[in-house]
């Protein structure tokens, strides 16, 4: 076969390629939303707590299950965050508690992601009756009051960790479902999806190769936000006494401190320490999740609505002036 002479068409192809080719899958990583100090701070914070949970047993200065100091001792050199009502070191308790809190948070968010993602996907893709039925179910779940439900579950099935994870996941999937449904509906209308369907592709291929990959990043961003919600949910479930009595979590610590009259004893450290941890993790997840959503969902941007003030420039010097 004789060599094909260079034409404008293929020359452009050679020229048009920039030095670094960015796959469209990862283009969102360059978004300015991910560079904000808030986002980086949130990510760092999250990382710290995850490491804390993973290396808990190595980081605890004392054994959190035994008495290692006086009851309700204030923070000191020996006990950086003081002690609780049984003399156990607060810092060790907080570190140990991070394990359960984070596990529940991530696991429940995962459950919510799977349920919400599936509901949203089926609803958005099939439309019609499926959509109607699934959205009605979503509405009903949304309406169920969470605490009474948890009380009932605790009463019927016992206060086990697994139950808490499932119950949180089963309540908080609705916003994910709505988000995924909207995304799937819009991707379904894209020309390339219609084209591949017209070629003869079945639903599995359309969903698996074209729709899900497009929706996945937003789903993950939303899941990060759900982690925040789940951790907070675990905290107050346990605080209300519905948590697993044998496990240490931040919610348990707060519950204990109320049961042990920390307020009366002016032992602020017993409440503040776990409370601040919960706050920081929830804050971190929110910042990271929000930043991811901003980077992925261009419709959330409103910068174009700002006042337009263009800048004048002098022709000769090319310098800008206001």
């Amino acid at each position, binding site marked *: 076969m004789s060599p094909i002479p260079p*034409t*404008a*068409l293929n*020359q*452009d192809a050679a020229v*048009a390629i920039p030095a670094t080719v960015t796959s469209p899958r990862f283009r969102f990583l360059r978004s*300015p939303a991910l560079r904000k100090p808030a986002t980086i701070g949130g990510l760092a914070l999250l990382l710290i707590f995850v490491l804390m949970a993973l290396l808990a047993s190595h980081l605890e200065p004392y054994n959190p299950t035994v008495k290692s100091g006086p009851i309700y001792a204030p923070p000191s050199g020996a006990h950086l965050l003081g002690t609780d009502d049984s003399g156990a070191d607060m810092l060790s308790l907080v570190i140990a508690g991070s394990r359960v809190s984070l596990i529940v948070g991530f696991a429940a968010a995962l459950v919510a992601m799977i349920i919400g993602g599936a509901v949203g996907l089926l609803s958005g893709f099939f439309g019609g009756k499926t959509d109607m039925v699934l959205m009605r179910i979503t509405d009903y779940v949304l309406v169920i009051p969470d605490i009474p439900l948890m009380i009932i579950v605790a009463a019927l099935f016992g206060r086990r960790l697994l139950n808490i994870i499932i119950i949180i996941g089963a309540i908080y999937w609705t916003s994910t479902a709505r988000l995924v449904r909207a995304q799937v509906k819009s991707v379904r209308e894209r020309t390339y999806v219609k084209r591949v369907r017209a070629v003869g592709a079945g639903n599995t291929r359309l969903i698996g190769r074209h729709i899900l990959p497009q929706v996945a990043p937003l789903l993950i961003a939303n899941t990060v936000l759900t982690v925040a919600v789940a951790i907070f949910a675990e905290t107050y479930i346990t605080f209300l006494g519905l948590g697993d009595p044998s496990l240490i979590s931040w919610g348990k610590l707060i519950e204990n401190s109320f049961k042990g009259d920390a307020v009366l004893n002016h032992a602020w450290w017993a409440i503040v320490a776990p409370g601040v941890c919960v706050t920081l993790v929830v804050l971190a997840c929110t910042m990271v999740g929000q930043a991811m959503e901003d980077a992925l969902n261009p419709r959330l941007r409103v910068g*174009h609505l*700002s006042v*337009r*003030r*263009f*800048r*004048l*420039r*002098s*022709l000769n010097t090319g310098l*800008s002036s*206001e």
Partner: protein
Amino acid sequence: MSGALLQVEDLNVWFELEGRPELHAVQGIDFDLSQGERLGLVGESGCGKTTAILAVMGLLPPTASVAGRVRLDGDDIFEDGEDSIRPHRWRDIAMVFQGAMNAFNPVRRIVDQIVEPMELHEIAEGKAARRQAGDLLELVGISAQQATRYPHEFSGGMRQRAAIAMALACNPRVLLADEPTTALDVMIQAQVLELLGRLTEELGLALVLVTHDLPVVAQTCDRAAVMYAGKIVESGTTDDLYHSPRHPYTRLLFSATPDLYGEGDVISIPGTPPRLDREVTGCSFAPRCDVAFGPCSSVTPESLSVAPGHQARCHLNDPTMRRAS
């Protein structure tokens, strides 16, 4: 040129890009417009025509920097940037945006949306404004009864007319229309173009019609300027541009446009326009030009007058260049 209503001189627009060199979107364009005149600004996507008229209106974002002069009745309205353009915006120069027909507020009646600019610019208010708005809508072919409807009850063509009425709300003398008929069927397009023609004749309105559609300009405008890669490469009467084009791009663009009864092949122009974020040596059209010669790739051509009122930016019109090569 004195006596012209609108004079644009050496208009330049740069866009700041994040982490990349700035984009020189409009590279020194000049044009004049007199009362009642229809000027076409033609070019393909990315040539800078929309950016240019947005610059004239002062509607560019903060990432844009603008240089040059825009004179209205001899006064430079660009002198103090936003502050000097603002009093003229909509009152003297108005614009029909691309896709304006889809930019109506869906929950307000059409007539109320025409009244809005009138009240904002203190032209009229209340009952008087409504009456004036009604008259304006009648002028563009929308009856009083239809005026009280909502945008979704209007067809595309009628919404485009309403968009034109909105632009005329404050009685401007210059109307900039960006692709006013691109999304419309050919019959509706004819109706809207006829309307624009009537407005320039009856109201003495000066019109700049920005479009990529050469035949529309050929049929509607008296004069036209062809833009390529941020510059005006040729300007003159539409008759001159079709019958004696003096820039290869103009000639090729006409040849690339199919005509109902034309003979000869419909051609395409190979290649793509140059990137505007880097400096180009020589003529920006040279890589795609079918008659490029010696100096084209090294010397940037200036705009030369080839006949009265007819200018082109091409070395082929420069006898000194041809002799030297």
